[in-house]
């Protein structure tokens, strides 16, 4: 029953919130939603402590001794993903307490956020590709809602573009699942990995295109900058922080490592897509003046690092990729929340109109520096270690050119992020910004907490790898065996 908390509790509270919005417009939605996020974080840490540290467990839920036929699976990768989702969603939930006032009904906003979290947890815990697809769709619909929360024509246009491209991605994924079903007669992850000849080239291509669109890899990236620029800051924080990681990267991991088994061809495609994304994302970010647009391109580049690391397929590469997945979730959420804080305080995220805000927004400026240095991979912050491991993994397999590109793109990242920091926070304060004051407490608290996580997980990176990332990497390294050695508990 414990695992179902991750889906059932946010979904139940989401259904309840619009009903209580008549009684309490502010306090109860804020309190209940954030209580739920705290509960999920506590549950993810408890699961980490309860989980034996190895193996994949499939749990068929029971209620008073009878089977509910709700099968959920837990392994090292799930544990890491659930923790990542819980940390990011709590940070965004706390940030929203002050931020979301200008975006309509608080109860509806939190309800959408909770459905998004429940669906993302559903993607992670699903034991079946079709179930995973349904939760990807649910999370996608909730994401369009978050994009459309912005009250401008651009946000509606961004949401529409996102809707259409996400629909295209979903149709690719569904077609891939249908092809597998035709071949094997099942959509269960374990059953497909047991079936012989389940691989069809067409389904692989469909999955690469579908999941590539979901995680905005180049050349499937064009929805991301528009959607992220148009939406309120909490949407890109949630999307870049966790949705892209689960509906894109996690699904790629599950399908290509545990369902198909990583073949040299898929590995090469992942490496190529990763390298192209790293370079294209970094260079496209250089020319941007709007904070969120630049961060969107930066996300494309950073997701490229994750895919590159995973695509190498060696133990070190996979550890680097998964470590960067967690670290990027933290520092990119922080950077998007910072951009939201700047926009909240000044009314714009156009860097050309900003300047000298360091004195007016000291906390936002400080946490932004930590976030950007992490993103650029400056030691001892967390982004440094994950990029270092990926580069070492590339050198290990003699991919020297790609290692050079990874280092070079990291320098470009530092360049454009410092440029933005200088434009927005340093220099002379503009006349029009003299009335600006620091953002309210919960926004500052949320950003400070994420900045602390950036520093702390960078300092204790070795123990973080051994306790959290290594079991997750083992799941991917085990490949097909991981799904085959699933232990059934209950029912």
């Amino acid at each position, binding site marked *: 029953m414990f695992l179902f908390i991750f889906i059932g509790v946010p979904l139940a509270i989401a259904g309840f919130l*619009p009903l209580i919005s008549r009684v309490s417009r502010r306090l109860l939605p804020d309190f209940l939603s954030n209580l739920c996020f705290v509960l999920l974080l506590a549950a993810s840490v408890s699961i980490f402590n309860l989980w034996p540290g190895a193996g994949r467990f499939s749990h068929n839920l029971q209620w008073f001794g009878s089977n509910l036929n709700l099968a959920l699976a837990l392994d090292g990768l799930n544990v890491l993903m659930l923790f990542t989702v819980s940390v990011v969603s709590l940070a965004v939930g706390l940030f929203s307490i002050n931020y979301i006032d200008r975006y309509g009904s608080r109860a*509806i906003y939190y309800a*959408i956020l909770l*459905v998004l979290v429940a669906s993302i947890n559903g993607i992670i815990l699903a*034991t079946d590709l079709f*179930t995973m697809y349904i939760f990807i769709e649910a999370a996608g619909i909730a994401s369009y*809602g978050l994009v*459309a929360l912005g*009250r401008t024509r651009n946000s509606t246009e961004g949401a529409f573009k996102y809707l259409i491209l996400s629909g295209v991605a979903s149709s690719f994924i569904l077609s891939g699942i249908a092809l597998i079903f035709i071949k094997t007669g099942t959509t269960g992850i374990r059953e497909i990995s047991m079936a012989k000849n389940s691989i069809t080239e067409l389904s692989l291509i469909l999955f690469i295109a579908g999941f590539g669109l979901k995680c905005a890899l180049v050349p499937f990236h064009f929805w991301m900058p528009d959607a992220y620029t148009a939406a309120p800051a909490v949407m890109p924080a949630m999307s870049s922080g966790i949705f892209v990681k689960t509906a894109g990267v996690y699904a790629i991991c599950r399908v290509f490592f545990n369902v198909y088994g990583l073949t040299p061809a898929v590995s090469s495609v992942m490496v190529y897509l990763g390298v192209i994304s790293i370079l294209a994302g970094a260079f496209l970010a250089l020319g941007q003046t709007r904070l969120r647009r630049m961060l969107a391109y930066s996300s494309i580049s950073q997701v490229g690092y994750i895919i590159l690391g995973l695509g190498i397929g060696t133990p070190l590469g996979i550890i680097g990729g998964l470590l960067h997945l967690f670290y990027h979730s933290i520092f990119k959420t922080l950077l998007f929340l910072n951009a939201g804080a700047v926009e909240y305080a000044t009314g714009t995220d156009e860097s050309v109109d900003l300047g000298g805000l360091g004195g007016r927004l000291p906390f936002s400026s400080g946490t932004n520096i930590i976030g950007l240095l992490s993103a650029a991979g400056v030691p001892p912050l967390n982004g440094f270690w994950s990029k270092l491991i990926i580069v070492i993994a590339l050198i290990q397999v003699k991919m020297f050119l790609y290692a050079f590109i990874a280092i070079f793109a990291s320098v470009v990242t530092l360049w454009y992020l410092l440029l933005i920091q200088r434009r927005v926070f340093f220099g002379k304060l503009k006349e029009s910004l003299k009335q600006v004051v620091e953002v309210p407490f919960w926004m500052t608290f949320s950003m400070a907490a994420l900045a602390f996580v950036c520093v702390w997980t960078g300092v204790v990176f070795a123990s973080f790898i051994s306790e959290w990332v290594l079991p997750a990497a083992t799941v991917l390294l085990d490949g097909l065996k991981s799904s085959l050695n699933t232990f059934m508990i209950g029912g």
Partner: protein
Amino acid sequence: MTAFLLAGTMVFAALAVFLKDMLKAVICLLISSVFLGIIFFRLNAPFAGVFEISVVAGLIVVLFILTISLTGGQKSFVEPSISLPIFLVLFFIFSYVLFVGIFRSGPAEEPVSMVEEYSKIGEVLWMGRALDTVGQISVIFAGVFVLLCVVGRKRDDK
């Protein structure tokens, strides 16, 4: 008859995409869904047919029309002349693929009895795929909340 229904489904689905007038597009979607629902019935899949006609042709079309009326979409549109050639090209491509598929698929299987199918669908839904039902609840929740958000915004704007 099936070929006629399939062609009708595709024609109206394509029109739903190409027409600029939202209301006309929604009506085309409705007709396309009805055709598809009839195909499901003819293929002995009554549950799929009922869902298709009630949910897609009924509920979703009502939601679309509601949204169009709320956002004031009933303006007069000049349909671009490029729509028709694109549609015709796509129509012939899809028709070709479809008919090749039909000719290659061989004779149809014997239909299962209705009673057998009822018990099978119930079993699949409640015994085998209960988590999918939870996923569907998430989809419905997400859709309703997004709609409430958009409708609320419209009210605020007024």
